[in-house]
């Protein structure tokens, strides 16, 4: 079935123009910047955990390319994004700030995701139309189908102008390959297909679900092989190649905006670090394998691409690094000193209900 999926990279060779060809140097550098910022924040989080200053971190390292590509393909901050815990780079690219991430790490009151109620990296941002995620995996997928259903409904009922770019016109959700084993995924994909929804499911396939390798998760080589069974287009892409990922996402976005229906984009990638700060990955994969993948690092790769094309030079790299470092430091201090949530209202049973209008 693999051959059923659209292989954009193969297509690309034979075709004239890829959407990424028209990305300006400014945009390319912005994409680079978000990948870098994400990486540096992520590294700091690991350090903070090792120092015992935060209880938990779960990392997006290695996944930055497909995440930033996804964000840049959609209408950032407007289209619905229902991400998962690895999507730090995606959320930053959509508009979440470094401070906001750090506030979550420290569980502080100002954390926009949950006000410190949820574990770190359980992203949410109402103003950016980033939906609130839980820990149980894959629950976001059928919900994102619901968001997409909402869009289609609002347009059909003339509650929303289809041309209005200040309104969400698609729902993007993401998850790991392991999480597609959940019934939640099946049911969400099915709704998206039946109703031809403006829906994109990004599968960040890092070939492990914690310790469980893909062949114990599914009997097919690609998650995208399952898309056709839902009437959904499936695309397999090198998730460590930001431009290829962008091309795939643009295709998915165009399909969503134009009413052609849902798309599943499977980005092949890798997690070069343990699953989370609670994990030790030495029991389930070889150091050689990890080292090999580290050589395919998506940031180094994109950096080289930009250097080769003269879009980036060492000066600029240094400047970006300095800016990132400063942001990481500053946001850490800010979050560290920010107040915790107040206890009484956090534990007040009435706080679980939205107030009823009178």
């Amino acid at each position: 079935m693999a051959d059923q999926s659209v292989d954009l990279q193969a297509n690309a060779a034979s075709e004239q123009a890829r959407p990424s060809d028209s990305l300006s140097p400014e945009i390319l550098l912005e994409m680079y910047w978000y990948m870098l910022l994400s990486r540096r924040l992520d590294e700091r989080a690991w350090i903070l955990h090792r120092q015992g200053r935060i209880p938990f971190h779960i990392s997006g390292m290695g996944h930055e390319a497909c995440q930033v590509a996804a964000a840049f393909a959609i209408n950032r901050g407007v289209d619905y994004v229902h991400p998962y815990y690895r999507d730090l780079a995606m959320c930053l690219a959509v508009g979440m700030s470094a401070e906001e991430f750090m506030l979550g790490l420290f569980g502080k009151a100002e954390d926009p995701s949950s006000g410190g109620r949820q574990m770190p990296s359980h992203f949410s941002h109402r103003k950016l139309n980033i939906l609130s995620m839980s820990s149980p995996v894959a629950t976001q997928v059928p919900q994102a189908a619901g968001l997409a259903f909402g869009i289609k409904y609002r347009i059909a009922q003339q509650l929303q102008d289809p041309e209005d770019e200040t309104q969400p016109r698609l729902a993007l959700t993401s998850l790991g390959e392991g999480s597609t084993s959940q019934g939640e995924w099946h049911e969400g994909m099915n709704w998206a297909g039946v109703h031809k929804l403006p829906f994109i499911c990004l599968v960040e396939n890092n070939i492990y679900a914690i310790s469980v390798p893909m062949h114990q998760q599914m009997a097919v080589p690609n998650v995208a092989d399952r898309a056709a069974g839902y009437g959904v287009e499936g695309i397999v892409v090198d998730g460590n190649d930001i431009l290829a990922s962008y091309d795939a996402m643009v295709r998915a976005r165009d399909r969503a905006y134009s009413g052609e229906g849902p798309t599943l984009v499977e980005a092949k990638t890798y997690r070069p670090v343990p699953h989370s700060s609670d994990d030790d990955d030495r029991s389930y994969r070889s150091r050689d394998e990890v080292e090999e993948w580290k050589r395919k690092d998506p940031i180094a790769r994109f950096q080289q691409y930009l250097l080769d094309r003269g879009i980036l030079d060492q000066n600029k790299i240094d400047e970006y690094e300095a800016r990132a470092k400063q942001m990481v430091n500053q946001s850490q201090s800010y979050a560290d000193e920010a107040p915790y949530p107040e206890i009484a209202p956090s534990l007040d049973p009435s706080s679980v209900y939205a107030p009823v209008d009178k």
Partner: protein
Amino acid sequence: MATKTLIEAIREAMDEELENDPRVFITGEDVGPRGGVFRATMGLIEKHGPERVVDSPLAELSIIAIGIGAAMADLRPICEIQFADFIHPAMNQIMNEAAKMYYRSNGTWTVPMTIRAPYGGGISGGLYHSQSLEALFAHCPGLKIVIPSTPYDAKGLLKSAIRDPNPVLFFEAKKGYRAIKGEVPDGDYTVPIGPVNVRRAGDDVTIYAYGMMAHYAVEAANMVAEQDGIAAEVVDVRTILPVDREGILESFKKTGKALIIYEDNLTMGYGAEVAAILSDEGFEYMDGPIRRLAGPDVPSVPYSHPVQEAFMPSPKKIADAIREIAEY
């Protein structure tokens, strides 16, 4: 006012809300041309169109999740679960998602969704078309749970549920869909979610009940009033969650004696919480043991006719229990 059945009142509430608010839509299995297996949505697709009355795939988890997503996209979904017994596949979406969304997002995202589900026994539904599930969900902060007993309450409470910014589980006594009749005003009115409703006044014993059992309780109270001169007060606990602790305590302070009726399994049923509230906050008023009359602890409700009858609480069994407590 016209006399309407429970199911007519429910249909009317949906019809009017569909009419009044373009964000309201219905989804569920067979809600479209079939009008629902109980006919609760009969005629609505013809009137409001297939975009607003949407036959879902046969998958409860997704019915609820689509509702959650649509609610967050500022719609007002009414999700029908064909029988309460089939809600379990959606537990994760209801308990871990809908119920926790407002709290976990620190009040930034809301899930204004209504979940309707017929519940209860006595219709030869066997183990999987008879279940009562309010107790399970009553342990989940963030949900509201409503079980109307009268057509008047059904229409008014369902409208409140649809307009509520929180997820509301609305359980309907299927045995009473056509059997329960009452006065229902045409047009708009609401009944607030929250307060219990004293359906019958009395000083001797308080009976707590809801849904179909509230009717049996009133019937039983009338029986013992006539036959034994016992004045039983019937408190209709039409909102199961959030718990109206004050409303529950108020009657008990007068009577000091409590009988809690539910057709759900006894252990960990809703009566456990009522008993716990009374035996703590109402301790000083206690004038006898707090009794529960409920379904036995076997999977509800066996099919075989005589076993089904024996499983269900009945006005007669309730009357006997009232007498026993009153005499204490």
